[in-house]
C-alpha cells in the first residue's frame, strides 16, 4: 500500500499520487502550474475522442433549457475512475478551466457528473476534457419525467416514514409512565398528548393504505391494506373511546409502531423494485449506431437512428443493425435475423425485398431504402406493446394475499357475530372485546412477514448475480411443474461445430485453401472453421467472390475453388458445405449446432426433480429433434418451426410454466410465461421483460433459484401458520375478556418481533 502525496489516501499501485487529479492539484498548489496546461502533459497518451462522431451519437442526451436569461445545455455523465476528494474538487472546478462550462456538480456515490454548458460546446469536447483529466465519461440519456417523478415520490415516502417513526417514538415515551401505573390528572394529560401525537400518523403517514384500500373496494377485492386500515382505525377509535370514557385501554403506541414497521418494510421492497424501472427499449438498442444517409442525391450525411426519415437511403456497413423497416436496393445481401426470428443461419435477401428493423447486415455493404421512421417500425411497435402488457402482467395471487382475505373475513365475521350475540348481556364491553379481537388479530405476518421474506430473498439473489424483476417469482416458481427451453442460443450455442469431413483426413493444402476463401467472411461456417483450424496457415486466394447464400469462390494456382452449400441438405439436421475444384466436388464438411456443455446435465437434474421438460424452436424439425435426442427430451414435447406468435400461444397453453430463452425473438414468449428466465440477452430488453435474468451465470443457475424460492416460500408459509396460531389464541383471549391494555400492547409487537426474527434467521 502506498500513501498518496497529495490527499493521503492509501492506494495500491506505483507512483506518488492515487489519481490524476491529485497529481494535477499538487502541481497547481506546489508549483503554480495552471491545471489546463498540466492536463495536456498528463494526458498525451490517453484516448482522443472523435468530436463530431460522439455528438451525432448522443444528440439524444442533452436537454436544452431556455427558461433562463441565456440558453444553455445540460449533460449528464457516468464517470469511471473516481478515487478521492481531489476528484470532486477538480471536476467541480471545470468552470474555472473552461469558460464554456457554466456549472459542474458531482455525485460521488452515484459517479454522476452534471454539467451545464454554453450552447457552442460540443459533447465530444466535454468528453475529451473529462478524459484528459484521467476519467472515463459515459454520456447518459437525459433525465426523463418519469425519473423526476420517482425522485419526488421517494422523498415523500421518506418523510411519511420519518413522521410515523417520530410518532411511534413519542407515543412510547408518553406511554411508559401510564404502564408504570401513573394515575390521576397527569395520566389524563398524557393520554390526551398521545391522542394528539397520533393524528399526523393517522392523517398523513397512512395515506397510502387508504388509497390502496379504496382502489380495492372499487374493484371488489379484499386487500392487506384494508386489514391495516381497519387495525389502525380500530386501534384509534378504541383508544379514543377509552380516553373519553376514562378507561385504561390505550393502544396509540402499539398501533403507531405497527404502522411504522410496515411502512419501512414496504419502502425497502419498493426501493429494490425501482431498479427495474421503465426504459425506452428501442432507444437503448440503437443509441450507439451511426448511419450514413442520403436523401437520394449525392449529399451523404452521418446521423443517429432517430433522424432517419422515410424514403431516405441508408448505406449500411457490415455488422450494423437496421433501425427501420426498409427495402433492399443492393442485388443480394445476407442478414442475420436471429434477433427477430431465432433462425441461427443467415438469410439471403434479394433486390426489392423487404428487410425489417433489428436485422444485422452480414455482407460487407448494402444500400437500403427506408420505408418507415424507426419508431413506426414493426420492431418498435412490438417493443412498445411489450411495455404495455408488462405493466398489467402482475395478476398473480400471493399466498399471503389469499390467507389475508380469508383471515379478514373470519376476523370480521367473528367480531360481528360476537358483538351481536353478546351485546344484550355485556353492553359496551361486547363492543370493546370485538374491537380488541380485530386489533390483536391484525395479521402482522400477512402485512410485513411476507414482504420481508421476499425482499431478503431478492437481496440474496441479487448478491448471487440474479436480477429478479418481481418478488412474486418465489411463489410462482413453487407452482411450476413444466419447464420449456428455447433451443438456439439457450440450449445450444450460436456457434457451429465442425463434426466431420469427407474424406476423413482432409489434406493440409485443402484446409489452407478453405481458410483462404473464408478469410474475410463473417458467416458462422467461416467462424467455426477459423476456430477449429486455428493453427493452420492461410493460402492467398485471388479474386475471392462471395455468392450470397451459396458460398465463396476464388482462384488459386489457376484452379477455380468454390466452398458452398449443396442443393439438398442432409436429413439428420446437420449443415453440409462442399468444396469443389473446377466444378468437381472434392470434399464435404458437416457442421452442427453445438450443445452448451451444461445443457445435458441440467435437463438430467430437472428430470430428477420431476419436472416436465419441453423444447421450443424456430428451427426446422430435424434439427430440433436432433437436439432433443441428445438431451433425452421426448419428441412429443418438442415444438419446432415456431414463430414468435405461435411460441407465445404454446406457452399460454402450457402455463403455469417456466420458459428459459433469450433474444428478441423470444420476448413475447418470455412475457407470456408464468416465470421467464434468461442467462443471455444482448440488451436491456431481456432485462426488462424477463422475470429472472442472470447475465453472468450459466443455465445451471436455474437450480439455485429453485432452491432459494423453495426456502422463501417455506418461510412465508411458516410465518402464516404462526400468525394464524398466534392470532387465534389472542382472539380467544380477547373475546374471553382476558386481555388488559398492558398485555395487548406487549402482545402485538412481540408477534412482530418473532416473525422478523424467524424470517431473518431462516434466510440468513
Amino acid at each position: 500500500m502506498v500513501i498518496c502525496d497529495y490527499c493521503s489516501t492509501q492506494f495500491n499501485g506505483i507512483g506518488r499520487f492515487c489519481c490524476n487529479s491529485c497529481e494535477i492539484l499538487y502541481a497547481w498548489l506546489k508549483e503554480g502550474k495552471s491545471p489546463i496546461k498540466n492536463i495536456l502533459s498528463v494526458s498525451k497518451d490517453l484516448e482522443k475522442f472523435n468530436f463530431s462522431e460522439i455528438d451525432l451519437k448522443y444528440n439524444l442526451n442533452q436537454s436544452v433549457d431556455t427558461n433562463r436569461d441565456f440558453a444553455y445545455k445540460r449533460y449528464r455523465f457516468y464517470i469511471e475512475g473516481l478515487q478521492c476528494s481531489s476528484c470532486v474538487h477538480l471536476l467541480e472546478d471545470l468552470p474555472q478551466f473552461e469558460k464554456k462550462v457554466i456549472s459542474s456538480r458531482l455525485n460521488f456515490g452515484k459517479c454522476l457528473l452534471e454539467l451545464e454548458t454554453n450552447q457552442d460546446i460540443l459533447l465530444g469536447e466535454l468528453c475529451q476534457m473529462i478524459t484528459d483529466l484521467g476519467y472515463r465519461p459515459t454520456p447518459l440519456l437525459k433525465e426523463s419525467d418519469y425519473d423526476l417523478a420517482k425522485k419526488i415520490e421517494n422523498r415523500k415516502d421518506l418523510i411519511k416514514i420519518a413522521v410515523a417513526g417520530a410518532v411511534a417514538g413519542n407515543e412510547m415515551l408518553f406511554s411508559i409512565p401510564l404502564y408504570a401505573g401513573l394515575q390521576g390528572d397527569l395520566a389524563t394529560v398524557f393520554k390526551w398528548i398521545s391522542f394528539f401525537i397520533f393524528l399526523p400518523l393517522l392523517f398523513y403517514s397512512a395515506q397510502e393504505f387508504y388509497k390502496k384500500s379504496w382502489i380495492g373496494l372499487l374493484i371488489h377485492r379484499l386487500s392487506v391494506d384494508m386489514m391495516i386500515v381497519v387495525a389502525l382505525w380500530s386501534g384509534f377509535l378504541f383508544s379514543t373511546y377509552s380516553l373519553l370514557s376514562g378507561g385504561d385501554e390505550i393502544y396509540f403506541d402499539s398501533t403507531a409502531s405497527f404502522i411504522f414497521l410496515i411502512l419501512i418494510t414496504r419502502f425497502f421492497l419498493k426501493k429494490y423494485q425501482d431498479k427495474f424501472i421503465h426504459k425506452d427499449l428501442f432507444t437503448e438498442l440503437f443509441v450507439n449506431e451511426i448511419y450514413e444517409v442520403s436523401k437520394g442525391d449525392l449529399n451523404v450525411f452521418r446521423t443517429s437512428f432517430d433522424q432517419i426519415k422515410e424514403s431516405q437511403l441508408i448505406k449500411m456497413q457490415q455488422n450494423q443493425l437496421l433501425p427501420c423497416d426498409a427495402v433492399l436496393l443492393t442485388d443480394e445481401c445476407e442478414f442475420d435475423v436471429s434477433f427477430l426470428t431465432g433462425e441461427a443461419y443467415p438469410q439471403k435477401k434479394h433486390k426489392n425485398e423487404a428487410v425489417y428493423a433489428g436485422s444485422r447486415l452480414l455482407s460487407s455493404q448494402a444500400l437500403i431504402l427506408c420505408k418507415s421512421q424507426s419508431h413506426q417500425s414493426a420492431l418498435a411497435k412490438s417493443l412498445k406493446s411489450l411495455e404495455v402488457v408488462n405493466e398489467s402482467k402482475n395478476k398473480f395471487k400471493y399466498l399471503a394475499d389469499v390467507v389475508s382475505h380469508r383471515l379478514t373475513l373470519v376476523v370480521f365475521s367473528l367480531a360481528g357475530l360476537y358483538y351481536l350475540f353478546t351485546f344484550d348481556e355485556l353492553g359496551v364491553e361486547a363492543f370493546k372485546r370485538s374491537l380488541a379481537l380485530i386489533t390483536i388479530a391484525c395479521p402482522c405476518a400477512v402485512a410485513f412477514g411476507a414482504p420481508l421474506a421476499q425482499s431478503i430473498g431478492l437481496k440474496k439473489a441479487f448478491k448471487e448475480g440474479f436480477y429478479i424483476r418481481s418478488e412474486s417469482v418465489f411463489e410462482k416458481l413453487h407452482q411450476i411443474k413444466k419447464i420449456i427451453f428455447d433451443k438456439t442460443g439457450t440450449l445450444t450455442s450460436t456457434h457451429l461445430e465442425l463434426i466431420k469431413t469427407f474424406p476423413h483426413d482432409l489434406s493440409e493444402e485443402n484446409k489452407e485453401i478453405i481458410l483462404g476463401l473464408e478469410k474475410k467472411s463473417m458467416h458462422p461456417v467461416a467462424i467455426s472453421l477459423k476456430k477449429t483450424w486455428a493453427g493452420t496457415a492461410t493460402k492467398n486466394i485471388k479474386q475471392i467472390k462471395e455468392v450470397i447464400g451459396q458460398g465463396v469462390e476464388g482462384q488459386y494456382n489457376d484452379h477455380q475453388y468454390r466452398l458452398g452449400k449443396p442443393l439438398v441438405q442432409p436429413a439428420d439436421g446437420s449443415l453440409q458445405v462442399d468444396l469443389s475444384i473446377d466444378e468437381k466436388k472434392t470434399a464435404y464438411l458437416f457442421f452442427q449446432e453445438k450443445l452448451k456443455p451444461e445443457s445435458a446435465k441440467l435437463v438430467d437434474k430437472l428430470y430428477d426433480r420431476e419436472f416436465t421438460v419441453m423444447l421450443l424452436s424456430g428451427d426446422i424439425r430435424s434439427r430440433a429433434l436432433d437436439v432433443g435426442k441428445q438431451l433425452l427430451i421426448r419428441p412429443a414435447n418438442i415444438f419446432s418451426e415456431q414463430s414468435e406468435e405461435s411460441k407465445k400461444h404454446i406457452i399460454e397453453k402450457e402455463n403455469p410454466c417456466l420458459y428459459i430463452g433469450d433474444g428478441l425473438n423470444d420476448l413475447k414468449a418470455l412475457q407470456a410465461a408464468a416465470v421467464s428466465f434468461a442467462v443471455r440477452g444482448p440488451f436491456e430488453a431481456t432485462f426488462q421483460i424477463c422475470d429472472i435474468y442472470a447475465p453472468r451465470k450459466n443455465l445451471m443457475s436455474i437450480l439455485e433459484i429453485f432452491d432459494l424460492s423453495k426456502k422463501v416460500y417455506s418461510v412465508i408459509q411458516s410465518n402464516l401458520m404462526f400468525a394464524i396460531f398466534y392470532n387465534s389464541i389472542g382472539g380467544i383471549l380477547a373475546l374471553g375478556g382476558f386481555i388488559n391494555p398492558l398485555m395487548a400492547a406487549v402482545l402485538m409487537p412481540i408477534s412482530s418481533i418473532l416473525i422478523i426474527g424467524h424470517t431473518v434467521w431462516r434466510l440468513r
Partner: protein
Amino acid sequence: MNVTIIFMVSLALGLAITFIVSYIWAMRDGQFDDLETPAHRILKDDFHKSTISDTHEGT
C-alpha cells in the same frame, strides 16, 4: 400539576416537532440525495482560496 413536568413535557414535544420539521425541510431541499460528496467538498474551500489567489497573483 408540577411545573417541572409541564416544562419537561413541552420541551420534549417542542424538540420532537423541531426535529421532524427540520428533517422535512432538509429532505425537500434535497440534502439527502447525495450523502457522500459534501463530505469531500468540505475539504476544498481553504485550499481553494489560497490556490486561486496564488494563481491570480502569478498571472
